[in-house]
């Protein structure tokens, strides 16, 4: 992954690059936990092009920032048609009165310069009613083909300063791209920016691929492929698009692979004699160990972010339910006790919650619960919702929603953990099994 370098415009402030700490006492603050009733109005006029070649990026960068912020449902853009002031120079004083008049509580100003294929983006956030800057201005340096990422970086910084949470816009999603009718579906692995831009295909559709997952640093993807005729675990280097088969053994099915936070160990399901259990493997040495040994189905594992525990699903009680066990195996305790069946548990990157799929009375739900099973909350309901994945800040969940009937189609949706802001994620074709990357750097 190409790095984007960030620098503080005014160097004095502490090395808090993303500046989450800056928002602590500011009057501009959104408490995500409270559930926002009224989105915060903001303005992001076109950035100022400081070199001739910068003009094509200056407006587009402002549009991507606006799409990020408004897309959260926490912010509402004051459109350009309502602006009184025009920002002609990045360093001239902001006319706060003009932005107060249109009720923009936050203002984002910026400048773009291009030198060869090098792109520099500077920005400042402003608290309009307090008439002061919102944290310290930042400068991002990268290449022109990474302009969307720089816009996401700006939006992440603004989001972070106003909500006190880390951002999630400069992130990617790996998923399964689907085409063709339901009884002849073609699947291939794809990766895209979190907002659906820059789709890149990682495999062809010659064999079924399922349930990819990013490594903790986002450089590799684990997934299940039927390339050999049997489901087996593959790992793919995203930058090089090089693949390697991790599991082997003719007639043995391996699937549902997930990385441990160390990026070296994986946990996965293996089926022998019709029985599916969980195993772990050191992917550098290939050394395997068995984690469960039961006649029931054990699958869909997910590590806690500290690597000490694994949540998984099992039908040992007679129906699919969620269990937590030590990462090395051992006694598992059941955490799901509501009505219906629970599957596909995924531990939040913050460590505080587990997202899951629940099936009850013929409907599917995406939900979240505490890691001890308490405070279960269902966020969605439809004919078929499944497979949640967490945004890197643990505040948003993306999942697969499949529509009913012979023309049924899978698409990606996202929803806040408050259950608000349910919306489709744009993909060129059908899409399933999303997995969110960590924040890029």
């Amino acid at each position: 992954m190409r790095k984007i370098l960030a620098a503080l415009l005014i160097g004095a402030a502490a090395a808090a690059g993303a500046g989450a700490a800056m928002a602590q006492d500011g009057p501009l603050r959104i408490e995500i936990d409270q559930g926002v009733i009224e989105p915060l109005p903001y303005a992001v006029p076109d950035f100022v092009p400081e070199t001739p070649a910068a003009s094509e990026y200056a407006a587009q960068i402002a549009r991507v920032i606006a799409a990020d912020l408004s897309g959260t449902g926490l912010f509402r853009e004051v459109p350009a048609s309502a602006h009184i002031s025009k920002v002609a120079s990045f360093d001239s004083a902001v006319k706060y009165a003009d932005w107060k008049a249109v009720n923009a509580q936050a203002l984002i100003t910026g400048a773009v310069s291009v030198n060869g294929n090098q792109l520099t983006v500077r920005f400042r956030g402003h608290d309009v009613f307090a008439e002061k800057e919102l944290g310290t201005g930042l400068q991002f340096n990268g290449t022109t083909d990474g302009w969307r990422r720089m816009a996401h970086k700006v939006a992440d910084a603004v989001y972070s300063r106003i909500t006190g949470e880390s951002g999630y816009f400069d992130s990617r999603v790996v998923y399964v791209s689907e085409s063709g009718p339901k009884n002849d579906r073609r699947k291939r692995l794809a990766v895209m920016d979190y907002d659906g831009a820059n789709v890149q295909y990682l495999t062809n559709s010659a064999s079924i691929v399922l349930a990819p997952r990013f490594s903790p640093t986002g450089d590799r993807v684990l997934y299940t492929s039927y390339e050999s005729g049997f489901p087996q675990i593959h790992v793919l280097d995203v930058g090089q698009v090089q693949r390697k088969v991790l599991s082997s053994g003719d007639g043995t099915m391996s699937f549902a692979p997930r990385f441990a936070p160390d990026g070296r160990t994986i946990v996965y399901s293996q089926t022998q004699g019709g029985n599916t259990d969980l195993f772990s493997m050191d992917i550098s040495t290939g050394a395997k160990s068995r984690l469960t040994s039961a006649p029931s189905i054990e699958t869909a594992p997910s590590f806690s972010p500290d690597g000490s525990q694994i949540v998984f699903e099992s039908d040992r009680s007679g129906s699919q339910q969620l269990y937590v066990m030590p990462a090395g195996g051992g006694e598992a305790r059941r955490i799901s006790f509501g009505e219906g069946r629970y599957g596909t548990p995924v531990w939040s990157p913050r460590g505080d919650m587990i997202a899951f799929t629940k099936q009850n009375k013929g409907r599917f739900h995406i939900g979240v619960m505490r890691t001890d099973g308490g405070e279960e909350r269902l966020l969605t309901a439809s004919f078929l919702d499944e497979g949640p994945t967490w945004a890197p800040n643990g505040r948003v969940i993306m999942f697969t929603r499949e529509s009913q009937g012979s023309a049924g189609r899978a698409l990606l949706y996202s929803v806040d953990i408050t259950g608000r802001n349910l919306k489709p994620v744009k993909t060129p074709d059908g899409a399933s099994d999303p997995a969110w990357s960590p924040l890029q750097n």
Partner: protein
Amino acid sequence: MSGLKLAIAAVAVLGLAACSNNRWDDMANGSGAGAGAGLGAGSLDPASPAYFQQTVGDRVLFLVDQSTLTPEAQGILQGQARWLSQNADYVVTIEGHADEQGTREYNLALGARRANAAREYLISQGVAGHRLKVVSYGKERPLEICSNEACYSKNRRAVTVLAGGLTG
């Protein structure tokens, strides 16, 4: 006794043949022989894969979230075992499948249970284990595409797919 089971098996096969028309044609070795599955049985070579698929019955069905073989399924598998013992050149892959009501990875494991149940039964009927591979497709390869029980019941299946041996 075995005559009664055979009769049950035949009914089950005919029932299947009537409802499912797309997949069997694909599998009839490109000859287009399968147009009237029930009718042509008498004219099929009893050693042909088409006979195995259409007359013996190449698939068994399961109840929701179950991998237990019904009496009908056992009858069909007894027929498969007899055919396989008479046609010893063939090895088979048993494909387990689930309907769409379930999460993806659970359904993979469920399909594996179903395929294995069929495999174990064939072994109990004298077929050598080394001739019988299993694979699960979970809910990835539905045969019928409506979203109700009429289709789901046909998608919850274990299909015995012939490989090797004669290809005619």
